[in-house]
């Protein structure tokens, strides 16, 4: 492969200073309009910049946009191969099946999936082959890992990322037709200690044991963010305990566990911790000595008693700036805080609700948050075909004077959310904005997010009701 000299002589970590610094006012002239092609002196701003600054800029683009810069000019041809950002979000060409569907072809989806996987793998491998930089910041894999022979490929990717000193590693292995999840390889343990740069680790649909997770926590001295989702293998009692005696203190800021089999989480003496998110079983939560904690999210499936998860976090409520609670309206009552939440600015409720329920209980919780600025309702609507009119909430005269923004995600425009909207339009005297997003909360951020369907269109139609009842000064945004 022919490499431009610009790309080959890179490999420096530090920026060379002052090499090409501007010399006074000389370059001010002739900007903008005219192209002067005198020798190498092309009149574009980038020609003044050293390669490493351009690489810094390229690394802030998506991989697709980064690769696309190769066509700008010969200088740019290989600069993208030094990008420190390898976020392998699958392009459209990977998703589009080339196989034609025949009648009664029951294996069609399976074959499509296999085709997608092999396309994805060869795409990633081709880019990795061209990639020149020996250090990277972001490495993100987003694919399914169906067959066992793909597992070695994924494992090799992990080794590549580690070898390039990855700072943020994301494995999101959404197996569309996968029979089982990819298991994080035990033999990687010995190389984890080389992850000295690792700041953020996110494992989604990757089976990972508690030993490995704890190994990461205690051996990667710079680890700030840890997120594990959908790992059945992650079980037992997870201990995240800092040691103030030790020189090496935990630097964790963000912790998230979603749908794992953990039975207990103990967090103690992690002074850097800012955010803790948990969704899963009814577990033993034990949180102590986290003075900076300001964001909590808890909840679980229908069988989980929310109060069991809320109780252990009660002592931290007064210091929280944002809080998310997952509720099942027909299951139990909204836990009412035993104290005020004076710091709380953003409150989110993820609610599973039916037509016959209303959301008035949420407003009682809001009463305990005098300085609330933003309310987000994520509604998982379970239609039960109960027909009822929009009712006014009773005995609820509380005024939310700091509330500026209300956002509905999974908006359906039925009495359940319209009532709350109407109530807030009356009681939130300084409201600036209402956002209604009819996208189902589970498809937000997914491939299907912007697909239009009848349900969304119907919700948008019903949203007119809010528009008609909008007081002056309030903006209504319908997505």
């Amino acid at each position, binding site marked *: 492969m022919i490499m431009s000299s610009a790309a080959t002589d890179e490999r420096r970590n530090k*920026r060379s*200073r*002052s090499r*090409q*610094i*501007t*010399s*006074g*006012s000389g*370059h*001010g002239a002739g*900007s*903008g309009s005219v*192209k002067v*092609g005198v020798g190498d002196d*092309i*009149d*574009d*701003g*980038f020609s*003044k*910049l*050293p390669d490493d*600054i351009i690489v*810094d*800029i*390229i690394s*802030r*683009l*998506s991989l*697709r*946009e980064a*690769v*696309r*810069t*190769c*066509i*700008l*000019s*010969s200088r*740019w*041809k290989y600069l993208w191969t030094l990008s420190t950002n390898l976020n392998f979000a699958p*392009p*459209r*060409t*990977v998703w589009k099946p080339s196989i034609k569907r025949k009648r009664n072809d029951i294996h069609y989806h399976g074959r499509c999936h296999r085709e997608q996987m092999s396309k994805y793998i060869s*795409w990633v491998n081709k880019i990795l082959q061209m990639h020149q930089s020996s250090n990277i910041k972001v490495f993100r894999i987003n694919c399914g890992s169906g067959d066992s022979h793909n597992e070695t490929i994924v494992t090799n990717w992990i080794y590549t990322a580690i070898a390039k000193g990855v700072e943020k590693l994301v494995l999101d292995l959404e197996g569309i037709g996968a029979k089982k999840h990819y298991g994080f390889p035990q033999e990687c343990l010995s190389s984890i200690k080389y992850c000295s740069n690792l700041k953020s680790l996110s494992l989604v649909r990757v089976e990972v044991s508690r030993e490995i997770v704890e190994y990461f926590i205690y051996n990667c001295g710079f680890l700030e963010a840890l997120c594990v989702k959908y790992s059945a293998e992650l079980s037992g009692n997870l201990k995240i305990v800092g040691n103030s005696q030790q020189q090496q203190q935990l630097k964790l800021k963000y912790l998230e566990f979603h749908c794992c089999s953990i039975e207990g989480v103990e967090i103690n003496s992690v002074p850097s911790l800012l955010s803790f998110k948990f969704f899963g079983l009814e577990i033993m939560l034990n949180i102590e000595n986290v*003075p*900076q904690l*300001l964001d909590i999210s808890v909840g679980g499936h229908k069988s989980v008693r929310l109060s069991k998860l809320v109780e252990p976090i009660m002592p931290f409520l007064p210091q929280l*700036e944002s809080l998310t609670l997952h509720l099942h309206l027909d299951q139990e009552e909204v836990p009412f805080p035993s104290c005020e939440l004076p*710091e709380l*600015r953003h409150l989110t409720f993820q609610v599973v609700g039916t037509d016959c329920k209303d959301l008035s209980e949420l407003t009682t919780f809001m009463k305990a948050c005098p300085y609330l600025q933003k309310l987000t309702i994520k509604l998982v609507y379970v239609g039960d075909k109960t027909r009822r009119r929009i009712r006014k909430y009773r005995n609820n005269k509380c005024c939310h004077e700091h509330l500026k923004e209300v956002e509905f995600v999974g908006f359906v425009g039925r009495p359940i959310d319209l009532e709350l909207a109407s109530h807030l339009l009356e009681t939130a005297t300084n409201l600036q904005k209402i956002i209604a997003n009819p996208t189902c909360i589970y498809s937000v951020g997914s491939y299907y997010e912007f697909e239009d369907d009848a349900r969304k269109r119907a919700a948008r139609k019903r949203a007119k009701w809010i528009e008609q009842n909008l007081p002056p000064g309030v903006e209504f945004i319908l997505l």
Partner: protein
Amino acid sequence: MAIMYALKSSDNEIFEVEQKVIEQSETIKKMIEDGAATGEIPLQVSSKTLAKVLEWCKQRQHKTVENENDDNKGKRKKERDEDDDIKEWENKFSDELKADKDVLFDLLLASNYLDLPALLSFLCQLVADMVAGKMPEEIRRMFNIENDFTPEEEKAITAEHGWAFQP
């Protein structure tokens, strides 16, 4: 009394600046520590660009000084109130740079030379935001980049990375 330093731009203009403001620049800090900076500190930066650099440094300076004196809670509250102000200031700053790309690129070089990582990163992000979502032809036009490929070469490159060029 704050210690003042005199910075001299490449076109011989003098800027009087507080030590705390210019010490954000590792390059200048080193020059001061090495004792190279008695009297005027000569810099290879034009006055127009240097004025912009100092505008940035002063804005940053306000933030760090005020926060040092507060306890945790007060700090957080203050940060929250200030965040909006800073955002507004940054928006104005970047709008000016977008309008005058010469200054933008000179500032990029200056932030690199003066070792101001926060400014460098801010500017790189600004350029990246300008480039993002645009097709190559638009980017070339926006920054006056001369396309020195022959049509055949261009075709070959587009074919090699077909996935990146499809809409």
